[in-house]
């Protein structure tokens, strides 16, 4: 069993950004500019603190570091296995969370430095910093918390922060902040989304799915009798809970409901729609959501909980194991399908940030496949390592892609890639960074993206998910094509767009962060091969699954991936950079039959419209009917009209008896006596 070391300052890693957020909001009332410096410096401090914590873990991977666990509250559970359920405030660092926290803090720091320049003079600058820093704090909290309730608080905190930042430009008065094409409709549903609208979509979709997380994690806490994460690893009461669920056949459903929150947060099908329109936020927010926080939270959830599910279900017996396998297959299928689905959308999209957004969901799909495979193979560690390494490499290059996208959009005042033609000759550093990051996304060796994606694909192969395996390879082809297509536009000639000639390189405050990110993608790629086994050891040492022996990659798979990446990338480079053609209009004019396919992909498989028709419209009809008719005609009318009218009719009836004629009263009296007499005689 691993040794535990208590270190008091670990909590500060997530506390400092929260304090920074409060201060940034407070100071921003007086000086908007200054709040940015507070935000950046608080993130910087926690980024610094993540280094020694990781070093301590590297020094002895089997060790875990915890902060002093302060008791928060106790819930008495009379008659339960554990009579008292103690919730604590504290942090827990093992290899997984140490590396994750390091990545989150440093990538966020680079993004925040970029934002200092990018958000300068914005009308909501201090609001931006308040929520930006809160976002980083929540993410670090969910990564580092030792207690599941704190984990949930951090988790929901990221929902709030993403809502506020996606809808940052809440005035909806600038079309450059929108997503989609004006007046474009699919099945009568507008495909043009304003910032405030996108914010609502994000929080409703992720927040509603989080009920599943609350149900699942909450039940695990209350039936497992502990909310302390390491205690859950081998908890026998949790195992007996799983056994009970398995015996009534609901374990798969239970695990799936638990994962709903992660699926929504990581924008996996069918809960991916919010992420696409989340592009209404500032570019640095997109970078934060896609690289360091939010969508990575879902993957982190899977990385953290899959080992628990695996180890607990193996404790709980064969029925639980088979149902857990079913669950992992469902997750893998969803991940693989999302990877493919979003890649097809990215191929036709015209908005730069939107292309990267589609690709995020697609790449996260890869990670989900990898982590889900861990439940299906004999060496679960492989899936965890594959998913986690892809998460890290993706974080680095995707942050660079979004930050450069922000710089391009800023220069040309347009979201569309065909307005960005020719930027390559004006913004060399930015284009270089974007290009390098795009190559990494395209999985061109030796960049980081190549290695990690290859490992994911290989893991899916080992897990025997052959359909998903093929799907992932095909998606890799699409990825290579669309990522080079997006940056390829920067090299095309720029006759049509006039703004480009005024273009100039971004300021160093902006380009240094993304240059660092792009270069680190290259550096990680070079050293990846040498350190992957150490990485695996650090990540897996404290998790409740067996550690790996050694990762060796199948050369056949590797050759195949290289060929796919190179062919797709070069075909894209050939089309866009050498022959400098926009190929879709040409194809569509020659083959009009493909028009529908193009529309189908461009309108996101009509999934958005289907959701609006099925859910939004039906609920709108329902509440309108209830509000207009049921509430008024039935309930209100019953109490305040029918009932009162009935009362007045009854009272009129009684009043009409009492009209003052003595003989009628006497007759009534006699009849009354008669009836009483008859009752008394027993006749009636």
């Amino acid at each position, binding site marked *: 069993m691993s040794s535990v070391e208590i270190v008091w300052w670990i909590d500060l890693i997530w506390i400092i950004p929260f304090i920074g957020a409060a201060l940034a909001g407070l100071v921003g009332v007086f000086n908007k500019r200054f709040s940015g410096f507070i935000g950046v410096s608080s993130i910087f401090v926690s980024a610094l603190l993540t280094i020694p914590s990781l070093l301590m873990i590297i020094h002895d991977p089997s060790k875990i570091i915890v902060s002093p666990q302060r008791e928060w509250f106790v819930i008495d559970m*009379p008659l339960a296995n554990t009579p008292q359920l103690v919730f604590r405030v504290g942090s827990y660092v093992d290899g997984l969370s140490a590396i994750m926290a390091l990545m989150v803090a440093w990538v966020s720091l680079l993004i925040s430095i970029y934002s200092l320049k990018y958000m300068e003079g914005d009308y909501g600058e201090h609001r931006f910093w308040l929520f930006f820093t809160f976002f980083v704090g929540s993410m670090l909290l969910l990564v580092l918390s030792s207690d599941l309730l704190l984990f949930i608080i951090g988790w929901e905190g990221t929902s709030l922060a993403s809502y506020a930042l996606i809808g940052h430009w809440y005035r909806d008065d600038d079309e450059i902040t929108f997503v989609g094409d004006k007046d474009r409709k699919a099945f009568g549903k507008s495909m043009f989304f304003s910032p405030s609208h996108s914010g609502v979509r994000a*929080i409703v979709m992720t927040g509603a799915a989080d009920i599943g997380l609350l149900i699942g994690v909450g039940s695990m806490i209350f039936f497992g009798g502990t909310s302390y994460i390491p205690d859950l690893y081998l908890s026998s009461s949790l195992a007996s809970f799983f056994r009970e669920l398995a015996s009534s056949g609901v374990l798969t459903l239970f695990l799936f409901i638990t994962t709903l929150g992660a699926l929504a947060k990581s924008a996996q099908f069918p809960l991916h729609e919010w992420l696409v329109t989340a592009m209404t936020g500032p570019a640095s927010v997109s970078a934060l959501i896609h690289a360091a926080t939010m969508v990575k939270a879902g993957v982190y959830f899977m990385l953290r909980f899959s080992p628990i599910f695996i180890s607990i279900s193996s404790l709980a017996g064969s029925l639980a194991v088979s149902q857990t396998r079913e669950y992992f297959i469902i997750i893998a299928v969803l991940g693989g399908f999302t990877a493919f689905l979003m890649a097809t959308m990215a191929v036709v999209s015209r908005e730069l940030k939107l292309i990267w957004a589609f690709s995020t969901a697609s790449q996260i799909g890869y990670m989900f496949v990898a982590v889900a495979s861990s439940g299906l193979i004999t060496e679960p560690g492989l899936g965890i390592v594959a998913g986690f390494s892809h998460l890290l490499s993706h974080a680095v290059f995707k942050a660079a892609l979004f930050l450069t996208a922000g710089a391009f959009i800023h220069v040309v005042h347009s979201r569309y890639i065909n307005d960005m033609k020719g930027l390559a000759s004006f913004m060399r550093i930015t284009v270089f960074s974007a290009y390098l990051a795009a190559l990494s996304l395209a999985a061109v060796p030796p960049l980081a993206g190549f290695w990690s994606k290859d490992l994911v694909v290989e893991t899916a192969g080992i897990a025997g998910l052959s359909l998903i395996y093929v799907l992932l390879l095909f998606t890799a082809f699409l990825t290579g094509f669309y990522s080079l297509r997006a940056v390829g536009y920067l090299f095309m000639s720029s006759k049509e767009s006039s703004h480009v000639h005024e273009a100039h390189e971004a300021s160093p405050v902006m380009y240094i962060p993304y240059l660092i990110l792009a270069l680190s993608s290259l550096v990680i790629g070079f050293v990846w091969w040498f350190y992957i086994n150490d990485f695996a050891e650090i990540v897996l040492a404290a998790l409740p699954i067996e550690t790996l022996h050694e990762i060796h990659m199948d050369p056949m798979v590797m050759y195949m991936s290289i060929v796919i990446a190179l062919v797709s990338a070069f075909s894209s480079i050939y089309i866009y950079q050498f022959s400098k053609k926009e190929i879709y209009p040409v194809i569509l004019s020659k083959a009009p039959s493909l028009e529908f396919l193009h529309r189908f992909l461009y309108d996101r498989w009509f999934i958005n419209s289907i959701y609006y028709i099925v859910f939004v419209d039906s609920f709108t009809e329902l509440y309108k009917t209830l509000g207009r008719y049921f509430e008024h005609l039935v309930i209100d009318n019953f109490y305040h009209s029918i009932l009162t009218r009935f009362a007045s009719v009854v009272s009129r009836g009684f009043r009409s008896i009492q009209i003052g004629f003595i003989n009628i009263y006497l007759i009534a009296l006699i009849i009354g006596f008669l009836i009483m007499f008859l009752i008394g005689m027993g006749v009636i």
Partner: protein
Amino acid sequence: MILLSTLLIPLIAILIISIFPEENKKFFAYLLTGSLLYSFVVYMYMLFTYSTLYFEVLYGYVSSIGYFGLIYDGFNAPFLLGIALVSSIVGLYSLPYMEHRFHELGGGSWRSYYVNYGLFSVSMLGVALSSNMIEFYIFLEISLITSFILLALYGYGDRIRIGIMYFIWTHVGALLFLIGSFIYGLNAGSFDFIVPYKPYYMTGRGYEVLAPLGLQVIVFILIFLGLMIKLPGFGFHIWLPYAHAEAPTPVSALLSPNLIGLAALGMLRILVTLFPQIFYLMQNMIIVWALITMIYGGLVALYQSDYKRFLAYSSISQMGYILLGLATLTPAGVLGAVLHYLTHALGKASLFMTAGNIIISGNELRDINKMGGLASSMNKTAGSALLGFLSISGLPPTVGIISKFLIVVGFASYVITGFSNIYLMAILILTAFIGFGLTLVYSFHTMRRIFFGLRRSDIEVSEAPSMASLSTFVLAIFSIIFLILAGYLINQAHYSSDFMKIILMMR
């Protein structure tokens, strides 16, 4: 006599107000706010120091009625804190708001307003503190009458008619409650539900003193229906949107989260304590009723275009949350329900205050369709509204995350332990998704319609007077503070675990 002082000091303040001349409105406001703040501070102090049930006997044993006492334990602590805090801050808020309202009505009496307002607040504290059904009823009755007067005198629209409607409805509820209490109390020889000696809670007493099961069921149903009207549950809710939308906004801010939620405390104190067996018998029905209330309130809220009416329907939905948590009768669910009272008190009161701010500065603007984009000109109000919506939809950084978590967990364990049919379980869980999800939908949809996007009318709206906007913001900030203090609130219920144990054993 510490609990008594929390009632007496505001009462003395009210007495002072009633003899001072009319024009000292600021003095009235500060005096009343200060005295209610005193009560709040006392409850906070007790939250940090007391670790047992605290029973204060006001008047010794009265034969065939029982003890008149004031109690403080983990279950009513969130209620007391919520009532004292909201009513003291809203007392300040009334100053700019009623200034505006009196101006509109062409005059009004500050003295009568503050006397009624103060009595209303104190009587709600009394309801939460009471240990005995008669006491509960008397305090409840005072709160009903004073709120009726405030509504009928200073309300909007057809205020006399709506006031009478409110009066009749709540009195039908109170009467049902009273009949049920009499049947119980006369049979049991006392009306106590908590007594000043161990084991304090008269758990299962109804089973011992009311011989035939039928009688118990009748008493249960009478009290239950009475409280259900007060809560209100679906079907009995129709008075609420009228009353809460047309009351003057400070009164709505007290009525909506504070008064109606007390019915939930009544259910816990009386129905769960005295009749746990019957509660279990009816548990499924109550859960379904709670789910319907949640969903129906949320759906009809979406239909509303009047901001205050919207908030009123949202309160109905929130009462569904509380009833759901309570009816699960699991430790998590019950704690979640009482904590959610505080969440809702802070969140909904600040939301009503934001509605008031828009009314003050937007020239009676209440129609959501004519709002839009208000965040630019009213940033403090927008921030408070966001915090309010975060509270009621259970998101951090507000205390709502804890209460929603506990309610959801309570419901999940009710479903998991109580059912074995997978389809039934799936349907119940799906219903919970819709119920909790609808709150998110109506909250953030409305937030957008009011504060974000483009303006939809050319009505000039600027930030409300600083007294109004600041007091709104301060109240909203408390929902963050109570997230940090949530641990104390839950730990207060610690010593009630024996109570919970007996309840659980009676299943």
